[in-house]
């Protein structure tokens, strides 16, 4: 119940959530699981890529878990960046463990990432969840005693990390992720919703040609 109320309080921008966090080491430890589940939920919502590439059920589950781990890693990098930026502006930065925990908690809204599977409006919902997550991070960093503008800079920097890890992470930031992704999914995820149309059209045109030749 403790984690749920902690999540509930932080997601609605209530400082009581951070008080709960400061009082309990168990809650700090549990908060690190939030990015994992957020990642798994997000991947379930975006599972179209896996389905398009026809991965097996085991590989499907492995991909969910792998995304969860990538999210934990992202949260960790974001926390390090926050500590680095904070040290530039204030003489005494907040405790690193608490910063990591606050950043991990800000992934709370992304637990609803699975809902991005909803047709047409799912993508828009994903953007809303992004905004909510970044606002949670800014509020959390501010609640740790850092000035508002520092919290804003940290959350924008975190957003940049977040975007890079999602959009170009496997090319720019973490070259190894792309290779692990191939290993986990069983094949390179070459089909995306962008290129699947071309593939189907080529296939239909080829089949049409074959059908005409048969006639």
């Amino acid at each position, binding site marked *: 119940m403790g984690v749920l109320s902690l999540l509930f309080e932080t997601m609605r921008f209530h400082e009581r959530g951070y008080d709960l966090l400061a009082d309990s080491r168990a809650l700090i430890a549990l908060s690190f699981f939030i990015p994992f589940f957020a990642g798994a939920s997000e991947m379930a919502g975006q*599972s*179209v890529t896996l*389905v*398009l590439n*026809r991965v097996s059920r085991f590989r499907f589950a492995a991909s969910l878990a792998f995304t969860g781990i990538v999210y934990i890693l992202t949260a960790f990098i974001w926390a390090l960046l926050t500590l680095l930026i904070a040290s530039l502006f204030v003489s005494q930065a907040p405790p690193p463990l608490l910063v990591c925990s606050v950043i991990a908690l800000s992934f709370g809204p992304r637990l609803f990432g*699975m*809902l991005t*599977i*909803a*047709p*047409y*409006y*799912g*993508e828009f919902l994903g953007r809303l969840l992004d905004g909510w997550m970044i606002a949670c991070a800014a509020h959390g960093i501010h609640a740790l005693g850092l000035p508002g503008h520092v919290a804003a800079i940290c959350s924008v920097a975190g957003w940049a990390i977040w975007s890079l890890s999602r959009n170009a992470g496997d090319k720019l930031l973490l070259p190894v992720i792309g290779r692990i992704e191939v290993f986990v999914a069983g094949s390179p995820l070459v089909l995306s*919703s962008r290129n*699947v*149309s071309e593939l*189907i*059209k*080529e*296939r*239909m*045109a080829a*089949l*049409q040609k*074959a*059908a*005409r030749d048969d*006639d």
Partner: protein
Amino acid sequence: MIEHWALLSMLLGAAIFLLAGALSPIESFAWWAGWLDEDPASFPERDAEAFDGGKEERFFAVYLAGIDSIAGDKTTRRTERFLTLIEAAAPEVTIVSDVFPYAPSGRPLLAGPRLFLKTWRALYRLKLRRRSSILSNIINLRNLYQVLVSADHRYGPIFNAGAAHVILDALLRAGYDLEKAPPICIIGYSGGGQIAAASAEFLKAATGARITVISVGGIIASTPGVAALDMLHHLYGEKDSVQRLGAIMFPERWGVFPYSHWNLAKAQGRIQARCIGAMGHDRVGGYLGEGVDEDGEPFIRKTATAVAEVLKAETAAISACAQP
């Protein structure tokens, strides 16, 4: 206490609504992944025995029903009458209507294997007895979600490829000649308009034919299929507020996106909208309803005449082009 129950029922209803939406793309996933024992890569075959008239060189039109459709071969009396009126007004056109467009496999809601087969059958029986319109609206909701799947950038390609497959299958069964690839017209009523426009992209790739869509109060998104269309005739009623939703609920149709598929097609003159009377979207006062316009003509006849006019104009233009 009653207030609590009312609140709980509303919350439960909202949860079911959201869950149904979240699960709606799964049928497309299953079809694409081959879990439905159908190969999405196979090409439909023409049934030579079922068709005894040799290869047709006629103009073909496929009718896609609105979101209250449950199976391609279970059309309502109104729809049957509507199609009869079009056939009478445009006898040179072969109309194909046994298509269920709200599933990428084309499998009707009443045919198994389906998870909720019994539910759909029960709802269909209710619909036939004209009982419980709230419950029978579940069919509309299910099909509406499939319209959104068709409009989605992520799932749309696989759903629309399936729909194109189903349409082509029906055309080949009706004697469509793939070699000569005569023009194809898709008449889409309501949500059928979206599937008609979106599937055009793949239908064009499969046939190379001219593709025209006649949207009857269609709710159409700015999908890549619109770019593949040679012409989209949007027919609408003065009192139809539902078809206006399409312009509101699909942001890429807004004027602030001049380079969207929809707005480009509009700028190129490939989308023509025409008000055909004072009809609404459905029921008695709708496009296929028995209500009458100010001039005393029933709406159903008015709609059929407008559709037939477009079909005749298309056939005339094509015949003129074909003549040396």
